[in-house]
C-alpha cells in the first residue's frame, strides 16, 4: 500500500510540476480570497487585524476545494479511472498517494498564505509552533477528507458545484479550530489555543482511516 501511495503521489506531483496549475491558478485564487475578504471587512486596520486568522483559514478552505477538483480532474480523461483500477494498484494506496500530493500542495500554499497574511494584515505570529502545528494537522485532515469527497463526486456531471457543497460543511470544524488556534498564536495566549488541537487531531486521524477503508469501495461504486 505504501509503495503504491508513493507511486500515485509521485504521478500527481509530476503532473502538477509540468502543468503548474496549482502555482498559476490555485495560489492566485487564494490571494484573491484574501483581497476580497479584506474588501468585505473594511478598511479599518484593527478590524482586519482581528479578522486575519479567519481570513487565512477561509482562503485555505476555498483553495482546498480547488485543489481537490484539480486532483480529481487529472483522472477524468476517458478510461483513466478504469485504467487505474484495473492496474492492480491498491485503492488505499491511491487514496494515500492522492491525499499526500494534495497535502504537499496545500502546505506550500500555506507558506505563501502565511507570509501574505502577515504582510497584508499587519499581524505577526507570536507562537510559531502552535500555528505551524495547527497547519500541519489541519492539512492532513483537509487532504484526506477532500480526496475522499472528491472520489464521491468524481464521476458525476455536477461534480463542480456538488463538491464544494459536500465538502465545505465537513471541513468546517477545521476552519473553526484553525481560526481559534491562530488567534491564540497571534495574541500569544497559548492555553486558549491548545484545547482546539483536540478537534484537529481526531479529525485528521478519523478521515485518514475512513479514507483508507472507504476509498476502494467508493471506486467500485462509481
Amino acid at each position, binding site marked *: 500500500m505504501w509503495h503504491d501511495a508513493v507511486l500515485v503521489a509521485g504521478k500527481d506531483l*509530476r*503532473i502538477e510540476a*509540468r*502543468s*503548474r*496549475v496549482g502555482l*498559476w*491558478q490555485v495560489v*492566485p485564487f487564494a*490571494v*484573491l480570497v484574501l*483581497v476580497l475578504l*479584506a*474588501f468585505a471587512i*473594511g*478598511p*479599518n*486596520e484593527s478590524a*482586519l487585524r482581528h479578522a486575519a486568522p479567519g481570513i487565512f483559514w477561509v482562503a485555505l478552505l476555498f483553495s482546498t476545494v480547488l485543489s481537490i*477538483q*484539480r486532483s480529481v*480532474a*487529472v*483522472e*477524468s*480523461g*476517458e*478510461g*483513466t479511472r*478504469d*485504467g*487505474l483500477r*484495473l*492496474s492492480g494498484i491498491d485503492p488505499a494506496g491511491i487514496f494515500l498517494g492522492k491525499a499526500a500530493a494534495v497535502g504537499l500542495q496545500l502546505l506550500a500554499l500555506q507558506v505563501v498564505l502565511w507570509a501574505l497574511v502577515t*504582510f*497584508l*494584515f*499587519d499581524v505577526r505570529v507570536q507562537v510559531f509552533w502552535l500555528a505551524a502545528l495547527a497547519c500541519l494537522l489541519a492539512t492532513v485532515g483537509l487532504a484526506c477528507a477532500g480526496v475522499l469527497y472528491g472520489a464521491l463526486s468524481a464521476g458525476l*456531471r455536477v*461534480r*463542480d458545484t456538488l463538491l464544494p457543497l459536500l465538502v465545505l460543511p465537513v471541513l468546517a470544524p477545521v476552519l473553526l479550530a484553525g481560526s481559534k488556534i491562530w488567534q491564540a498564536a497571534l495574541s500569544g495566549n497559548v492555553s486558549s489555543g491548545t484545547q482546539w488541537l483536540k478537534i484537529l487531531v481526531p479529525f485528521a486521524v478519523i478521515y485518514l482511516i475512513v479514507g483508507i477503508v472507504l476509498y476502494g469501495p467508493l471506486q467500485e461504486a462509481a
Partner: protein
Amino acid sequence: MTTTAPTPINDPVVILPAVRRLRPRRPRWLDAVGLLGVIGLGFTVWLGLWVTPPDKFQGNLARLLYIHPAVATVALYWVGIVAAGGSLLYLWPRTRSLFWDRLAASAVEVGAVFAALTLVTGSLWGRPVWGVWWTWDARLTSTALLLLLEIGYLALRRVPADTAVRARRCAVAALLIAVDIPIVHFSVDWWNTLHQGGTFIDPGFQIHASASMSWTFLLGFVAFSLVFVWLLGVRYQIEVLQDAVGDEELEVSLAERWSEDTELVGAGTSTGPANGPADGGGAS
C-alpha cells in the same frame, strides 16, 4: 535517434547562423534600446544613491523615489497602453493581426513583473514612512489587483487552443482588465475616504526637489521605459518562436493521431491506459 555521422544540429555555433539565414528577425535597434536602458539604469543608480543629496523631509528614503514611480509608471501606464491598445487593434477587423495579440500578451507578462516590483518597492518605501508594510489604499490595492488579473490572463493564455481563438479570448480578457482597474481604483478610494472621513494616508509626499534630484528622477523614468521596450521586444520574439514551433508540433501530433485512428478501425473501444498526455486543462 542516433546517427553515425556527426550531426551539426546540436552545435550552437552552426544553429544560430542557420537561424539568422532563415529568419532575419533580430532588429538591431532593439538591442541598442536595451543597452541605452542599462546605461541609463546604471547612471540612475549612481546618481540616486550617491550623487544626489538626501531630501530635506524624507532624508535618504527619498532615493527610492527615483525607482518606485518609474517602475509604477511602466507597470500601470506603458503596459496598459500596449496591452489594451494591442488587444483593441487585434479585435478591430481592419487592423487584425497576430502581431498585436502577441505584443499585448508580452506586455502583460512584463507588466506582471513590473507590477510585483511596484508593490515591493512601494512597500519598502512605505514601511519606514507609515510604519506598516501594507495599507489598503487605492493605489496599492489596485496595483495588487492588477497583478492578480495579469496572472489570470497569463493562466488563460497557457490553456491550449487554436491561435486565433486564444488571441480573441485573451484580447477580450485584457480589455476587461483595462476597464476594471480604474473602477477598482475609484471604489477603493471612496471606501477609504468614507471610512477615514476625508483625509487619509496620502502616498504622495513632500519633497523639496533640487535640480540634480529632478534630473535623476527623469533619468529613472527614461531608463526604465527603455528597459521595458527591450523586455517587451524580446518577449515578443519568444512569443513568435513559440507559435512557430507549436504549429509544427500540432501538425505532427495530428498526423500521428490520424494514423492511429485508421489502425484502430474495427478494433472496438480501447480501454485507455492511465498515461494520457499531461495537459493543463483536464476539467470537463
